């Protein structure tokens, strides 16, 4: 009785709470709490992302500063003091004397930044083209979707390599190292927009024939307002799922390109570059140069992927 009264008497407090409260009481959060896969992978992603963001605070050395390296520290095994300098490293050092642990933290920043930016870029491009082709139809649709079909027939890593090669040719050498990251984002983003465009176009086709869209059109809203304010919100949950899964793929694509030697420069290694460097020392027994970056990449890509998988099930009303 008293409780009800207090609640009624203090509406502002209820408003304050409502978003968080809503979320906590939602089916979504309930499903999240009940799924150990989601909880674990979310925790792993959080730990990795946070350690990448705060890398300069956590990492004992800055591996991107060539002046701080001591070549004599090269090939130090994990947790063993170096024979010449006496320095010890948690995960050992690579051929240039870089601390593998610090390099992983810094390399993960590149991997995550490139992956996230590429997905964001692909998402914006794909959503725009998907909305436009679904809403306007006709020639616009034919051209955009045929281009998408053609691009889908090529493996995305090939498309990314092609774009990377062309872009690199146009970059002056002195800026190549700085530009490499942006070129990577462009290359991976351009190779990945098709998924978004197809899903958004499908949703647009379904939604645009509905009465509320017709109503919006009748009151004279512009096509862009209808697309963004009315249609897009209804297509967002599949986009979110694709974005999460694409993030894992983009991280792997970046690692693949860097592994092939066409991605991040060796002086600023990403996880893929580190794996490429480490691969050269696999036969000679310096396993740690490959092992730790590879494990990190595996953990990162797997947990993002599992999270995306769970998200797809959770947001699909038919699976509930």
């Amino acid at each position: 009785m008293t409780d009800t009264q207090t609640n009624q008497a203090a509406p502002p407090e209820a408003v304050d709470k409502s978003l968080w409260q809503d979320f906590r009481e939602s089916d979504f959060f309930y499903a999240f709490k009940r799924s150990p896969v989601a909880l674990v992978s979310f925790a792993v992603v959080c730990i990795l992302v946070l350690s990448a963001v705060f890398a300069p605070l956590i990492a004992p050395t800055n591996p991107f500063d060539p002046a701080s390296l001591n070549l004599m520290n090269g090939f130090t095994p994990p947790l063993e003091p170096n024979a010449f300098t006496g320095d010890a490293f948690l995960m050992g050092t690579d051929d240039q004397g870089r601390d593998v642990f610090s390099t992983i933290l810094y390399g993960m920043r590149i991997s995550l930044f490139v992956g996230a930016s590429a997905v964001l870029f692909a998402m914006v491009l794909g959503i725009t083209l998907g909305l436009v082709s679904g809403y306007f139809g006709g020639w616009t649709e034919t051209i955009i979707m045929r281009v998408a079909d053609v691009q889908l027939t090529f493996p995305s890593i090939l498309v990314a390599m092609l774009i990377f090669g062309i872009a690199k040719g146009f970059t002056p050498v002195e800026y190549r190292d700085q530009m490499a990251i942006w070129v990577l984002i462009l290359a991976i983003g351009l190779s990945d927009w098709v998924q978004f465009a197809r899903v958004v176009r499908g949703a647009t086709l379904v939604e645009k024939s509905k009465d509320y869209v017709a109503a919006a059109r009748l009151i004279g809203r512009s096509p862009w307002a209808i697309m963004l304010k009315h249609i897009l919100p209804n297509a967002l949950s599949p986009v979110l799922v694709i974005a999460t899964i694409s993030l894992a793929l983009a991280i792997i694509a970046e690692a693949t390109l860097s592994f092939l030697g066409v991605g991040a420069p060796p002086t600023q290694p990403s996880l893929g570059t580190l794996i490429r460097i480490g691969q050269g020392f696999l036969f000679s027994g310096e396993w740690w140069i490959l092992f730790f970056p590879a494990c990190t990449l595996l953990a990162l890509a797997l947990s993002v992927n599992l999270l995306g998988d769970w998200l797809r099930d959770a947001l699909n009303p038919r699976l509930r």
Partner: protein
Amino acid sequence: MKRTIFAFLASTVVALPVGAAEFTWAETTDPQTMDPHAVNSTPVLGFLNNVYEGLVRRGKDMSVEPALATDWEPIGDGEGWRFTLREGVTFHDGAEFNADDVIFSYERASDEGSDTRSWFAPISEVVKVDDYTVDFMTSAPNPIFPSSIANWMIMDSGWAEANNATLPDKENGNYATINANGTGAFKVTAREPGLRTELMPHDGWWGDVEHNITKATLTPIQNPATALAALLSGDVDFINPVPIQDVARLQSDPDVNVIQGIEARIIMLGFPHEADALKYSAETSDKNPFADVRVRQAVAHAVNVPAILQTTMRGNAEPASQLVSPAMNGYSEGLSERPAYDPEKAKALLAEAGYPDGFSFGLKCPNNRYLNDEAVCQAITGMLAQVGITATLDAMPVQNYWPELRADNYDMYLLGWSPGTFDAEHPIRFLAATPNEEKKLGSWNFGGFSNARVDELLPMIQSEIDADKRQAMLDETAKILQDEVAYVPLYVQPLVWGTRSNIELTQRPDNFFILRWVTVN
């Protein structure tokens, strides 16, 4: 049915000699051309030594021995050399070899567009005496001429003319870039640049056959770890080089042998002596700091060569102080000390030269030419950054690398030099003499280093017959090059080959892999 029987009979009739075998090998770099006069580099000349032949050749111990010439003798009082040619030699296409081919190959190899041009700098005229005698007239006495042309290969004049390849074409290539027609023990039967080159024995070869190969295939594998995996799995019989970090592990493997030696090759840093400004500086730059000898000295003191040898080369290489290694003829014993690693001194020299805060520049580096080349450049980038000069490292495959250097697109570069003559005069002629098209000098002196005294000494060294006087002049030249820091010699590259244990072969210090010395057991 009839056909099958016939094929069966045919295959038994041409039964292979006992122990005959196919042989496959992998190298990091594909020979970029099949033209023996277009590119003067070890991957090209080493490979083509199996296909083409010169008037003389080098034996297993590097001594000069007769090849297409059976005999040679000085003319008069050092006016030139007379070569007596071998009779009855045929090219792979069946054409007869004679003096016309020698004259033609001389003109072709000494043409302006040829990379082997400077080999003929001492020659004033070549005269055909008869079909099997040729005179090489020299402008001054030249005692080392016969040994200096061991890699000059003879091409058939008729074949070159018929296929429109009378001159080498470095940039665009021509018929001779992808086809070959020599007199050597092996002929090229298939060529896919960068993928696969197939060789078969030349049945009409004049020499005694030592090998037992029926077919040899070269597949370039750029990644050393992949090449090693191919060797361990038996996909290839021989790899060059073995990644230096894997030597210890391979030595304990009974299926493979590691053959180690010291190569004649010096790895060094080169500078743009003539440039007006840096090309790849992040600051706006209208100066070329490397034109100042103090900056070059600073670089020499900043690079920690012992650390590179200890870590990157795993103790398998020797430091270098000159443009030739101690094993070469004419090495200057008294100048074996290289600038000590001293970052403080390097900083002081930079400050003295007017760069107390350093500067930034671009370092060019190959990534598939020399052992651990990219790793070495990366290490050097770090060491130079420690004294305040920061390099943007640009590492690229060798087929893009040489054109970049020829177009002067560098602020500093990495170069390896192995003297084809095994003599200290060779790098002076190629790397230290002022570039001069007409005199065919300084053709690999990309930075345009120029010193009047060196230019004056070079012809005197070439014509001096007295060994002590010659050595004194070589010492003087080496001293000038050290004082001027024309280059920063870093180390002598180690030579590490790996074979399956059933292969017998001979390793020569010039890193040439000679197929006719291979036996497959």
